[in-house]
């Protein structure tokens, strides 16, 4: 048989059919396989409000840890669906809830009450009590979760934290290279030895 100047022998035809059919079937089988493997990446986790305790449980000016449950968990998630966050009661009705993940590389920041600082154990990131970067490598302030008071209870909205995608520029602010809070130098109010 001759098709447009090419001799199609029986052998060539069989090769074409074998490779073509095999490729088609492989592609058909690969679609669900790849879809299954990559599917979880595109799951949506809707924001959810979590009750973290009655209003009077939290002292004004204090920062304490609260635990939140994520949403859309699977039955075998276990502790993986829990996260810790830092809740600060600013005044009677005003709260701020900070993510516990360092904005540098995601290590767990811990609150040091006496120093009024959040400190990261991994690479030395430090944040002020309002979540602003105080020192070290973090490129951004601590992320915050929405918080509200409802029926005498404090509720925190869990939602997936944003990851700083493609952060290629230095967030340097000021001569120190960090967004440290430059303070006015105050004269000492008494003699030191």
């Amino acid at each position, binding site marked *: 048989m001759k098709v447009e100047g090419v001799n199609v022998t029986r052998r060539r035809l069989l090769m074409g059919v074998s490779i073509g059919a095999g490729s088609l079937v492989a592609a058909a089988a690969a679609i669900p396989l790849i879809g299954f493997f990559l599917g979880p990446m595109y799951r949506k986790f809707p924001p959810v409000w979590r009750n973290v305790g009655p209003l009077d449980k939290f002292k004004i000016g204090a920062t304490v840890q609260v635990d939140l449950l994520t949403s859309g968990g699977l039955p075998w998630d276990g502790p993986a669906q829990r996260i810790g966050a830092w809740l600060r009661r600013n005044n009677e009705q005003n709260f701020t809830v900070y993510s516990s993940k360092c904005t540098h590389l995601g290590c767990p920041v811990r609150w040091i009450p006496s120093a009024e600082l959040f400190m990261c154990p991994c690479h030395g990131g430090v944040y002020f009590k309002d979540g602003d970067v105080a020192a070290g490598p973090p490129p951004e302030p601590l992320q915050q979760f929405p918080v509200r008071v409802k029926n005498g209870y404090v509720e925190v909205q869990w939602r997936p934290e944003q*990851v700083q995608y493609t952060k290629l520029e230095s967030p340097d602010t000021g001569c120190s290279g960090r967004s440290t809070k430059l303070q006015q130098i105050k004269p*000492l109010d008494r003699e*030191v030895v």
Partner: protein
Amino acid sequence: MRALKKLLYGVLDWFEDRTGLVSKLKPIMEHPVPKESKWAYVFGSATLFSFVLQIATGVVLATMYVPSTDSAFQSLSHIQNGALFGHIVRGMHYFGASAMFMFIGIHMLRVFLYAAYKYPREVNWISGVLLLMLTLAMGFTGQLMRWDQDAVWSVNIAAKQAARLPLVGDWFSRFVYGGDHLSGITLTRFFDLHVFLIPGAMMAIIGLHLYLVLRNGISEPPKAGAPVDPRTYKKQYEQLLKKEGVPFWPDAAWRDALFGSLVVAVCVALAATIGAPKLVPPADPSVLQANPRPDWYLMWYFAVLALSPHNLESYIMFLAPLAIFGTMLALPFFFNRGERSPKRRPWAIAWVVIVVLGVLGLWREGVEAPWSPRFQSPPLPNSLPSSAPVAALHGQVLFHDKGCEYCHTINGLGGLRGPNLSNVANRLTEQDMVIRILNGGRNMPAFGGILHPDQVSDLVAYLETRRLHPGPDLSQAR
């Protein structure tokens, strides 16, 4: 006895008649290799022995390990504390991984020093680089299988790093998590990678690597003044083998067998005596008093992340691996001919020294982690004379309470992030100290908004007592 021998030979004859494997394998096992390929050549097979040990112990561990975030740690606890020989098998897996990292590194350095990546062994080298990358991936994913506090925070760190990739960062971050945050799927995906995908890829590439070793032959030890010329190399190599080649089995292979057996024996002995690292608290992202650290073989990278200049670290995170592995993969294409002897390639020796010292230096820094605050530092013991002012006593307490001690050392206690303040009064005036405390610096928070003026005074009063006696009194000098 004779009857048993006859029976065995009979079975072997039957097997050979049906498969022909023995007659096929014999020439492979007895293929000629350069006579001088001796002990320097055993590290590749030692890596293979370690890999086989990993497969064997991994298969056994997988019979009890449960890859679920709800139960992984409990199953590992049972393997460690309840299962028969469980702690030894887990230890063998741990030390096998360590051996594999060590020997693949030494093997690659030897190949690089001997320039065995040159013609016709370019693909041998490329497959070796791919195996190094996959070994690193196995190390990382293996650490996550423990599903302890280190593991759970390591996933976050990996996702954050992946997110720094331009354009595809979002996709890679989701790939690491198996979603947009940590969940039960995260562990099962890493289990899949650690147990199926990466080992499968490694087996395929090891097969290719071994096939190429047979096809292209074991590189002869390099001689100065005998450069590789692709036009003549194969003929010269064949002549060398004809002249002084020895059969691989047993003349050369006995060293591989002996050294590989020694490696496995040491792994078993270490597993039985020292054992795998103790299990730390199970993974719970709501426990924030964690201090995540990688396993020893990735400790150098931990240091890279901490020591990179802040404004360059995003570039370093994705460009450095690209540059390092890209250069390694490209190496045989640019230098596939010429001298092989290290005596004629001083730059190769320099590179090996730089790489070894660099990795060791970073590893040491990673282990010490001077950039990490020392939360566990105890309060400073009172070292003040009885004549010291009350303010200094208060300052000494504040030095601990306000976290100064987490980053500064005084008399051997405290952190290493900031300067040692044991004799700070010898180099800073009172005003210098106040400026630093209130304004902070690149790696120090500004305490101006945190400390009350009285507290600043007390701290400075204490630091003023920290001087080497007798020493220059800068405050007076200025």
